[in-house]
């Protein structure tokens, strides 16, 4: 079996052994591109911490040297020929994405808050006022019922609105430093912002500076920056393997 790591913009054969995992990595070069692979067993595709770290070590090596389209973790095919066929059959799509992403890296930013802390700073009347729900208050049974329902939902609605405000205030300056940006608000109740930012490699330092500036200005929240990563969030490519032989 062959484990697939990624497609790179380098069409010469090379190989190396990963220190620690002992994986023997080599580049299957076809027509100016390469599919980086290693001989593997079924165990290598399991979601275990040592496999995840071994996979990432290879990705870091590749990213430092080439433009790389990472293959989803744990992808195993039967042999070298299948990997070569993929490279041949999808060459134009791979080449287009590699050209678009040449010299670019992805940075990740996550911002978390403590929802209880956010809510504790506000009285219910203020929350209802801000959500413009106070006007619903009246003596009719229907209004009373509706008002009770809104009161139950008010904290959640307030948090959602607040999260969008804060996430945008953090995301927009980071997006201005980036070529492309993706944001996900409240992916979980605590995760206000989960952002991905595509940058020219030489702009990582400026991006870090903006991140630190925002982190200081939003000191009530927890910030995490990660990267540089290969551009995981900035391309979308699904390949069907098993076509005609090359």
């Amino acid at each position, binding site marked *: 079996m062959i484990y697939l790591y990624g497609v790179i913009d380098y069409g010469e054969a090379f190989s190396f052994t990963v220190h620690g995992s002992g994986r023997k990595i080599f580049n299957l070069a076809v027509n100016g591109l390469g599919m980086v692979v290693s001989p593997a067993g079924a165990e290598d595709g399991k979601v275990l911490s040592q496999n995840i770290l071994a996979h990432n070590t290879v990705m870091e090596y590749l990213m430092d040297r080439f433009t790389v389209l990472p293959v989803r973790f744990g992808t195993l095919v039967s042999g070298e020929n*299948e990997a070569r066929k993929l490279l041949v059959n999808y060459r134009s799509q791979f080449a287009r994405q590699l050209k678009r992403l040449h010299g670019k890296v992805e940075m990740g930013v996550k911002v978390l808050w403590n929802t209880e802390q956010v809510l504790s700073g506000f009285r219910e009347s203020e929350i209802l006022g801000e959500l413009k729900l106070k006007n619903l208050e009246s003596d009719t049974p229907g209004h009373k019922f509706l008002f009770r329902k809104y009161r139950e939902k008010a904290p959640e609605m307030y948090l959602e609105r607040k999260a969008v405000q804060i996430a945008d205030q953090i995301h927009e300056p980071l997006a201005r430093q980036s070529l492309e940006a993706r944001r996900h608000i409240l992916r979980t109740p605590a995760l206000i912002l989960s952002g991905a930012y595509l940058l020219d490699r030489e702009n990582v330092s400026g991006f870090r500076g903006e991140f630190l500036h925002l982190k200081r200005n939003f000191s009530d929240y927890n910030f*995490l920056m990660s990267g540089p990563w290969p551009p995981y969030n900035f391309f979308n490519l*699904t390949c069907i393997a098993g076509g005609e032989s090359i």
Partner: protein
Amino acid sequence: MSSVVEEKNVTLLEILDHVLDKGVVIKGEVIISIADVDLIYLGLQLVLASVDKVLPVYWDDDV
């Protein structure tokens, strides 16, 4: 020691968040395995939901 463990956990979590459901997806009968990635990814969402509770110190000191 705990901070080392926490740092490793954050690193692993961030790697998982990138490698599990993103990148070139290859489908077809020649695929031997793409792991039980979808199931694990659902689990990852749960871990992310609680990461602020287990890792606040490290996150504050990051960068």
